[in-house]
């Protein structure tokens, strides 16, 4: 635990320094990618172990306020996730006595609960209304999720049926999730349906018993950046390169907007348009993987299998443990036909984890069960990665797309 406390302190310290200004407009990461300095549309971020001490966590500090007031709380150690949309904060990470107004259902006036699905589990808790401040920008009065609020309605059976719960720092891996993915809302049109096609994400909870309810798009948990008054068409994640042997932590920038200010131009980044599910195609080892994506919320590179890569999985953890570091080449192609070639390596995860204090690894990888390459955090080091929001115009055309 001591290590975790120190890491959390370091995260806060670096964010505090970053936010104090005095940084030039453009620093250069050791990989050569430019990293934006302090500005109203730049939030300092830190890659590190975070409050749960996990590998490759990308973290930010978020300020949330009771709408229209100066009654605010700062939550650090919030995971920056391009694989989902919407802000979710653990109830246990909020100061005692800090209470946001709950969203009331337009159907029956009861509190609204949400069961949000991640690939590794669900979060359950009420939908609340908050002003969200990220650096100098604000999303006013937007729906957010409070995870694991004591006294809120019990978790519905249809929610626990989707996987493990992520209601604590250890199971969530952070104090919250800042979802800045390609979608404007966390669920989208499906959750507004009254029919059997509704996936059952939103609930009304009168008398602590919850039933699935249709939830209109504006009522759903919103991508906070898309709700800014400006710089609201996408984000850039800018992190320096790290050594192949690993690193304890690095600082970078989460930049709001694409082509809206002098510090967020595409600068020749290749635009890979995404299909309706948010995916492009990766080809590797002569295999085409049509459900591939870039995701800062995944802490490794997830692709193929032991059988198809020849790399065994470690004993004791799910990552690859090749006897020697392996080199790979992959080609990513968007729905617009644009493609890029990526070279990367996979190291022995047990060797990587043996260095005490290192949380960041650019060569950490694991199998993936389907036709998909999940380009997680190792992909981000030394690259500026653009996430353009659906329907929003940018100099690279309308989103959704990933560019780098």
């Amino acid at each position, binding site marked *: 635990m001591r290590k975790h406390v120190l890491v959390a302190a370091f995260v806060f310290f670096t964010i505090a320094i970053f936010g104090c200004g005095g940084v030039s407009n453009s620093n250069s990461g050791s990989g050569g990618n430019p990293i934006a300095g302090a500005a109203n549309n730049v939030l300092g971020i830190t890659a590190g172990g975070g409050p749960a001490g996990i590998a490759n966590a990308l973290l930010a500090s978020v300020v949330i306020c009771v709408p229209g007031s100066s009654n605010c709380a700062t939550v650090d150690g919030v995971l920056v996730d391009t694989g989902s949309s919407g802000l979710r904060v653990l109830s246990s990470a909020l100061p005692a006595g800090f209470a946001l107004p709950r969203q009331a259902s337009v159907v029956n006036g009861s509190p609204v609960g949400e069961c949000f699905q991640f690939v590794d589990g669900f979060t359950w808790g009420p939908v609340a209304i908050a002003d969200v401040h990220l650096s100098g920008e604000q999303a006013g009065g937007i729906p957010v999720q409070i995870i694991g609020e004591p006294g809120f309605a019990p978790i519905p059976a249809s929610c626990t*049926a989707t996987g*493990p719960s992520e209601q604590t720092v*250890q*199971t969530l*891996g952070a104090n919250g999730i800042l979802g800045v993915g390609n979608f404007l809302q966390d669920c989208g049109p499906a959750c507004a349906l009254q029919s059997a096609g509704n*996936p059952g994400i939103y609930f009304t909870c009168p008398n602590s018993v919850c039933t699935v309810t249709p939830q209109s798009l504006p009522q759903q948990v919103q991508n906070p950046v898309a709700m800014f008054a400006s710089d609201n068409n996408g984000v850039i994640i800018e992190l320096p390169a790290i050594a192949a042997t690993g690193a304890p932590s690095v600082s970078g920038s989460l930049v709001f907007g694409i082509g809206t200010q002098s510090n967020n131009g595409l600068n020749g980044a290749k635009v890979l348009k995404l299909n309706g599910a948010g995916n492009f195609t990766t080809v590797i080892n002569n295999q085409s993987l049509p459900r591939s994506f870039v995701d800062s919320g*995944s802490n490794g590179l*997830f692709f193929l299998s032991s059988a198809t890569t020849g790399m065994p999985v470690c004993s004791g953890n799910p990552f690859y443990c090749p006897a020697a570091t392996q080199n790979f080449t992959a080609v990513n192609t968007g729905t617009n036909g644009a493609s890029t070639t990526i070279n990367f390596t996979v190291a022995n995860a047990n060797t990587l984890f043996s260095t005490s204090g290192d949380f960041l690894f650019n060569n950490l990888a694991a199998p993936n*069960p389907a036709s998909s390459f*999940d380009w997680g955090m190792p992909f981000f080091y030394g690259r500026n990665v653009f996430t353009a929001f659906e329907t929003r115009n940018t100099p690279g055309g309308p989103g959704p797309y990933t560019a780098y």
Partner: protein
Amino acid sequence: MRVNNLNSAHARCMGRGSRSLWLGLAIIMIVLAPAARAELGGNVSSIQADQERMKGTVRVTSTMQFTVHEIQTPNGTVVREFVSPAGMVFGVAWQGPWMPDLRQLLGTYFEQFVKAAQQSKGRGRGPLSIQENGLVVETGGHARSFFGRAYLVPMMPPSVRAEAIQ
């Protein structure tokens, strides 16, 4: 649900020296369990229960080694159940915008999956890969694009590779 919970309790208590008691209870549970209980490790007749619960339509395709029962659910997620020549569900796979009802699909193995997944949380965030006592569960994807599979290694027909379960 009651049947599932008791069976999982049975699995957890085996190591505590109450083996014969729980074995006896398990036999009673098997006798009492409705025949059409759909789940991993169940028999082919159980798939109808999955279809009814998921309000889906089923399409059946066969290969030399197994039969695939594909359930198209109204919310767009497709579930495939892989049935051996002996009529047992040895694998399930899913793909679509939302997670399926894993409690229904994994049946008596659901609690084992959840427990193992919670214990593996220290590895960080991302796809799950659970391999425990012959049960394999793997998930992948991101919000609005999920996929995964689960299978029982001891029940896999000879010459069927895990990659076939998709």
